[in-house]
């Protein structure tokens, strides 16, 4: 067999980007082929919206007044994006177990592409989920101040989703099966999204729990969105987490990537040990 014409070895950075995009393309291509994943992710969020707005909403007064629906919608977007880590983790574990990662590792491709491609495609996937949810919100009467504010909030959500994708990569490479990954995600992320301002105003929590809930990244993200969009945002204290939620949220994302980025990359490299 003759050696085929081969592209001259591209530079490291160019190759990393092209290969990352190729892996991302492959991940996105899979979404419509397993529509159940996206459909149930959306249905789950819509179920939360309906349950809380129409069942619990009436029983939860908002300090300072305001409609529970307007209060709750930013929270459900934040909750959905926190769970973005699950999508990434499940995709990663599945790729390891099905042998696709081995196929990638046997190819002369950029080493970082498998992870960057995964985080990239999952941000796009979550953007799609968010759009559907936002339309649902509009239908049931949720409103925002302005379109630029909506766009800014959307970008902040995507940035947060990017951070959660790195957490998902690390987690996905550390669990043996998809099922275990799901269990871990739901037992860790459910309390995190519930001990927050997503469903109830922080004032209703016991006082010892309030500071924890206040600094919870889910809360700072939710508060950021409420602030940006002019939705009810009852704050409890004058702490940075409630006065400057956007800055704190951005800082959180950097912290999450700074911790889980290197851990995930190290775990990926150690697969050859």
């Amino acid at each position, binding site marked *: 067999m003759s050696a085929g014409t*081969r*592209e001259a070895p591209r530079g490291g950075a160019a190759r990393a980007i092209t290969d990352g995009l190729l892996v991302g393309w492959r991940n996105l291509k899979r979404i419509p082929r397993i529509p159940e994943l996206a459909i149930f992710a959306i249905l789950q969020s819509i179920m939360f919206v309906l349950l809380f707005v129409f069942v619990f909403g009436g029983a939860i007064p908002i300090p300072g007044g305001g409609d529970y629906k307007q209060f709750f919608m930013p929270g459900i977007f934040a909750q959905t994006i926190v769970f973005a880590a699950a999508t990434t983790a499940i995709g990663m574990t599945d790729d390891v177990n*099905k042998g696709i990662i081995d196929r990638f590792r046997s190819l002369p491709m950029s080493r970082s592409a498998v992870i960057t491609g995964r985080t990239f495609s999952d941000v796009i996937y979550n953007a799609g989920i968010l759009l559907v949810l936002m339309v649902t919100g509009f239908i049931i009467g949720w409103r925002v101040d302005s379109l630029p504010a909506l766009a800014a909030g959307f970008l902040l959500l995507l940035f947060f989703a990017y951070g959660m994708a790195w957490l998902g990569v690390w987690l996905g490479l550390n669990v043996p099966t998809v099922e275990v990954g799901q269990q871990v995600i739901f037992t860790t992320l459910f309390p995190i999204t519930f001990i927050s301002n997503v469903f109830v105003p922080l004032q209703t929590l016991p006082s010892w729990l309030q500071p924890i809930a206040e600094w919870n990244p889910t809360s700072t993200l939710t508060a950021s969105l409420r602030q940006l969009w002019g939705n009810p945002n009852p704050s409890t204290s004058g702490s940075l987490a409630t006065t400057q939620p956007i800055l704190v949220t951005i800082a959180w994302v950097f912290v999450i990537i700074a911790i889980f980025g290197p851990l995930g990359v190290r775990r990926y490299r150690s697969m050859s040990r």
Partner: protein
Amino acid sequence: MSDLISAHGLVKIYKSRKSEVRALDGVDLAVPEGTVLGLLGPNGAGKTTTVRILATLLKPDAGTATIAGHDVVGEPDAVRRLMGLSGQYAAVDENLTGSENLWLFGRLYQLPSREAHSRADELLSQFDLDDARDRVVKTYSGGMRRRLDLASALIGRPRLLILDEPTTGLDPRSRLGMWEVIRGLVREGVTLLLTTQYLEEADELADMIAVVDHGKIIARGTADELKSQVGGERIEVVVRDRAAVDTARDLLARDAGDEHTTFDEHTRKLTVPAHGGAQTLVQVVRDFDEAGIHIDDIALRRPTLDDVFLALTGRAAADETAEATGTTGPTTAKPGRAA
């Protein structure tokens, strides 16, 4: 001819909390360019571990290996450029179509997009997957999936092809088809490293066979050389009447020209090496008939992997399989996380 694969003293140890398994215990390999080496052994013998090290997926704990002079640990990228891997693990994406899979792997092999497309088309027709090219791989049969997997390994026209148990789990017809495809590739000059549990498969495809057991190579040679170590063909006769055994035994020894007959009390089975092959068998049937010895069964048996194993290790390969899958991590654990 120079060696395309050269490995010296490969050692791989899998540690877990409870135990330590030496999956590879000093493996040396030399495969000249353009030849086929068959790694033969039961599950858990170390075949897959060897393959994973040579394919740059796993780092050895000791020893070195080079592919065309490139160290598998030091220059993995250079090795990946001239190697194609297909096997139990390196898989295709079941949610992409056949042609999408090949195009993706071609691009990641650093082929330009247009060439990746034309190469994919070429391979799809070569492997008889034209009709299924736009179908999602999930809908493929086992044989089709293996062919696509093999096509994926060939996307970059590799000099070295590594096939890890390419026919395990295939039905007999698909297996024959796969052999035909592999023989075609070898004719074109690709160097092939093949692992298998079947002596027959190694016999059909390999120029040289290395028998692996407990992480060591315990024998190497051509298929004929290995079979002759086992003692070649045997005649087995089941005698109906136990009283006729002694007469039968004398006749067998005389016809075969070999005193080394054995008798199994339980099955009433007499065995003797058949140096004359089928001719000896004909003679035995004639003499038994003349002597009025009734037989229930008579057969000329060729050595199997079990026999080779029995001869080389004193254990049956089947027992080994059961034992190995129960205790060693590497082949039963998930890829990449055996430690």
